[in-house]
């Protein structure tokens, strides 16, 4: 009967093309506008690593100013990061931070160019499931001995080596030779959860090197650095021994027990530091998994919430219009409904027939809404500056498209429930005489 009912739906559309088209347009506008905002939220607020987001924890140590009641700092000091690294208590862990650099290509035809790189530990790559095109990460030994090894992004590899396998090649970065050990494939987690402090929708880094090299060689730090206390002294060592925070610290813990153990460890560490005069505020250290960290950092700006509400209201208005139009359409079919009842249709089958008709209109509205959403997203991409986020990410994908159509179908069926109920409960006898 499903195909039969679909055919009746198509015939019904043809009988009332203007009314039906108005309904489809109402659904399309409502769903399309909602999907624009939904896609933005989906891109900006989705789980970037769903299969292990509950095993990756951002470490938050409250080394903040005791004279202010603000939140704990989002990053760690050098003292704390190195202490945690040296303790080696997590299944995997990494300190990481941005660095600025200049690469001098061996090819004399290429001019030197600036890059933004990331210092990280070897664990960074397996922790965040970074995909490799060529080679592999460096090993833990390279971390400790601060070997001059580098993992290039695909773009940097393309630029320097024309996309060839460059593993084993050497590049000059910040005036020193670095050996390429790996090239990562396209990797653009959204949000960029491992470093939301420096822009949750930034693009990835151009090169990755062992993190300990950054402080050791005093590389420039283009990322956020916050100091609540004046640095005691001058020079790099004074900075490293200060209360300035500039390092993101992540651990991978395989289960809740490991998480509890690790939190207990950092609390004990903080208590020890208190004895040394640090950690002056009440104990408030935390482990945030990926999703918790996105919420804590308010990755989704308030504007998107307001937009969501507006889009939801617009969709509600469109659906209310659809209810009115469906009421008009289905009550206009009372005669046909009466005839069908006389010929043996029960109310249930009539209800199903008209639910399918509403769903059919919803599907058409959804398809049109998909087009409207695509146009809307192009507008959003045009309006948003590329500094705000990687706008190429704002696009409809298959799950979002399917969700759009499902939403349109379900919303239209829900909007149709009352009109269908009314239409199926008319007295057929009245309409059979007067049709």
């Amino acid at each position, binding site marked *: 009967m499903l195909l039969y009912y679909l055919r*009746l739906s198509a015939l019904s559309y043809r009988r009332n093309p203007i009314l039906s088209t108005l309904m489809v347009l109402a659904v399309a506008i409502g769903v399309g506008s909602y999907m624009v905002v939904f896609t933005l939220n989906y891109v900006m607020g989705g789980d970037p690593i769903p299969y292990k987001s509950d095993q990756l924890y951002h470490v938050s140590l409250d080394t903040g100013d005791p004279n202010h009641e603000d939140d704990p700092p989002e990053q760690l000091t050098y003292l704390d990061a190195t202490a945690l690294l040296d303790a080696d208590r997590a299944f995997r862990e990494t300190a990481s931070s941005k660095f600025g650099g200049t690469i001098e290509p061996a090819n004399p035809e290429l001019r030197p160019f600036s890059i933004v790189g990331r210092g990280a530990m070897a664990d960074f790559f397996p922790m965040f499931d970074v995909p490799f095109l060529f080679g592999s990460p460096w090993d833990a030994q390279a971390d400790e001995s601060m070997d001059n090894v580098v993992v290039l992004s695909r773009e940097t590899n393309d630029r320097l080596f024309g996309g060839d396998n460059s593993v084993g090649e050497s590049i000059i970065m910040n005036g020193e030779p670095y050996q390429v050990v790996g090239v990562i494939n396209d990797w653009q987690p959204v949000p960029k959860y491992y470093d939301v402090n420096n822009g949750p929708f930034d693009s990835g880094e151009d090169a990755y090197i062992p993190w300990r090299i950054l402080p050791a060689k005093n590389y420039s730090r283009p990322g956020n650095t916050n100091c609540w206390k004046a640095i005691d002294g001058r020079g790099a060592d004074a900075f490293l021994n200060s209360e300035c925070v500039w390092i993101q610290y992540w651990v991978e813990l395989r289960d809740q027990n490991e998480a509890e153990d690790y939190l207990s460890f950092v609390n004990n560490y903080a208590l020890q530091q208190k004895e040394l005069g640090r950690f002056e505020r009440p104990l408030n250290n935390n482990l945030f998994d990926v999703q918790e960290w996105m919420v804590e950092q308010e990755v989704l700006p308030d504007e998107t919430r307001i937009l969501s509400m507006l889009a939801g209201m617009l969709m509600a208005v469109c659906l209310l219009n659809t209810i009115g139009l469906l009421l008009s359409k289905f009550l206009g079919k009372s005669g*046909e409904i009466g*005839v069908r*009842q006389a*010929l*043996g*249709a029960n109310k249930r089958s009539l209800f199903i027939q008209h639910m399918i008709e509403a769903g059919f209109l919803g599907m058409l509205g959804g398809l049109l809404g998909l087009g409207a959403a695509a146009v809307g997203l192009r507008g959003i991409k045009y309006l948003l500056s590329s500094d705000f986020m990687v706008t190429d990410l704002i696009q409809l994908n298959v799950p979002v498209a399917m969700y759009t159509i499902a939403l349109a179908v379900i919303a239209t069926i829900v909007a149709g429930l009352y009109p269908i109920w009314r239409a199926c409960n008319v007295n057929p006898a009245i309409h059979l*005489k007067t*049709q």
Partner: protein
Amino acid sequence: MLEMSNISKVFRTEVVETHALRDFTLTVDQGEFVTITGPSGCGKTTFLNIAGLLENYTSGTYLLDGQDVSNLSDFQRAKLRNEKIGFIFQSFNLMPDLNLFDNIDVPLRYRGMKAGERKERIEHALESVGLASRRKHLPAQLSGGQQQRVAIARALVGQPLFLLADEPTGNLDSNTAMGVMELLQEINAGGTTIIMVTHDQELAETSKRNIHILDGQISNLPSVSQTASINPPAVSATV
């Protein structure tokens, strides 16, 4: 086959009560051709709607093929309508978007019949009303008489116990009306019971039994056909 005893139908509003049928008692046997006549508003159509299970009655008993229909669910009533009753309406009530084949297909769809059997039955029904060659035509492409033939084919295709016809010739010119009446008589001659409401006394007289309704009751005045009837009604209608 159809037994109504003391059926009453009262329409109530906040201020007024209207008795459409009062203590209406009627029995129709298998194979009869019964016409129902009476002035406008006398209750003819109400009787037809109750007989066709399209409307509930206020009191009384109605047995359809021996089954008391007073407490049936919507599903059971729809099933009975589909299997035992064929409807023919004054304004044909064909579905304008569906071609003749698909119009006749509607009751069979609700019966859940398989496609092959449906096709066979529809083609036979179309042949029996002389419209087999126009199976793909839409109703609007037919004359009134042809549309009513299609409606008759639709009513017959499910092989019902009886046909309920509400002014089936009311929208037709006299020649076409006679053609439709001849077709109905042929159908009756084949054994199908027909109950027909009509304003037309002449047409009523062509049936074997005529019931006259007045103010929701069967009138005591015998109609011409009743006095002239060779075969008296199997069960008389009483107030």
